[in-house]
């Protein structure tokens, strides 16, 4: 918890999970990963770690929120949108698509 508060991006409270995806899937360094996500979301680097800005944006984009919205995207559904938004392949999303073909 101390690390989350001192230096963490904030996960789903912000854009932490999206930046993490670029590191895990593309091996991007933090600067490049943040710029990539900020560019895709059309926000500033500072906005990526702001829970108010990102909370509203996540709601608008329907990519999963901490407080689940009625009818809002959850789990795998949110990841379908994240894959499209970031232009990346998400393994479990691709498998889900294959299974319902």
């Amino acid at each position, binding site marked *: 918890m101390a690390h989350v508060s001192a*230096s963490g991006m904030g*996960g*789903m409270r912000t854009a*932490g*999970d999206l930046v993490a995806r670029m*590191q895990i899937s593309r091996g991007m360094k933090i600067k490049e990963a943040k710029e990539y996500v900020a560019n895709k979301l059309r926000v500033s680097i500072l906005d990526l770690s702001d829970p108010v800005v990102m909370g509203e944006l996540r709601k608008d984009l329907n990519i999963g929120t901490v407080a689940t919205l009625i009818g809002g995207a959850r789990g795998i559904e949110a990841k379908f949108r994240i894959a499209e938004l970031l232009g990346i392949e998400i393994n*479990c999303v691709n*498998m889900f698509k294959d299974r319902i073909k």
Partner: protein
Amino acid sequence: MGKIYTKMGDGSVTELSESELKRDLEEATRDAAERGKIPPLSEDELSHLFDIYSSAARFVGVDCGNEVVLTYDNGGCKSRGHIMEVPLHKVQEAQIYEKFLGADSADIGHIDYSFKPVKAVVDFEQRSLEYALLVMTIPVFYGSQPNLGSYTQPDGPCPNPMELLPQGRISEARAAQEEMMEYATRDMVYVGSKMYESGVDGINFDTTAAAGDADFLATLRAVEILKRKHPQIGIMVGMAGEFVLGMHGELTYNGVRLAGLYPHKQVELVEKAGATIFGPTINTNTGKSCAWNVARAITFVKACIENSNIPIHPNMGMGMGGVPMTALPPVDVVSRASKAMVEIGRIDGL
């Protein structure tokens, strides 16, 4: 300025004068530079560290906009009945990390947290993972340790090198480790492939090289094979200690001898094998101050960052990266280690 309230590497309280703090920082970076044959921290960096550790604040943090990505290694098993006595399923624990704790990624794993025992229950692990992937939004790793030691008799198939070495049976000890490597690599590839086929975002090879150079080589080979089989797979390799123990002593990867490698050299091989994230570990010295430990850790990590093209997430749990070796690390020193590592080490995550 009066005495500076801080902690030792074992978590106990200590007080340092300004000159003692400066001396600790200078000594520590010199120690790392000499051991690793790497540059020490600059005057500006030491001055920044001094400011962080001389602050009277209980809690410190990075400047806005400098936040980094957090990855984990607990396998969703910290809450289990016999550890914390909160009886949660591993997927529920991962969901708590996601929804309550602001985690950027999650880690699912077996309670034993080693690849060998997972092999026997891999289908149960896949079910948990597949459920987690349905209900969670943040990226999910499947984590386990290479744990070469689990392949020795009487629990495993190979003679125990730790029994052979004291008897002077060096060649037999080496042969045993080479046999253990074959089993371990096969198990890591088997489990990693199963998890990838279940949809995982990445595999976390945690506490790599705990059993020395053979442990490291078995992991590098597994990473290489997994990456070749599944080019899209995310792979994080986190280390067990700051240099690779030469329990075998003659093993090489890509022409480089593994025994004695420090993080800035470890990362070259991990990257070459195909990993997408590297987690260096710098051991905490319990007899030195946390400031001493952080200055030393950052010196190693900075060299590692400068020598890598993939993200670097140093291990900063208890007993590593300047965090005290205690079950309940105090937030004043954890937050200082966190801020210092991000702002001076220029890390990509932790």
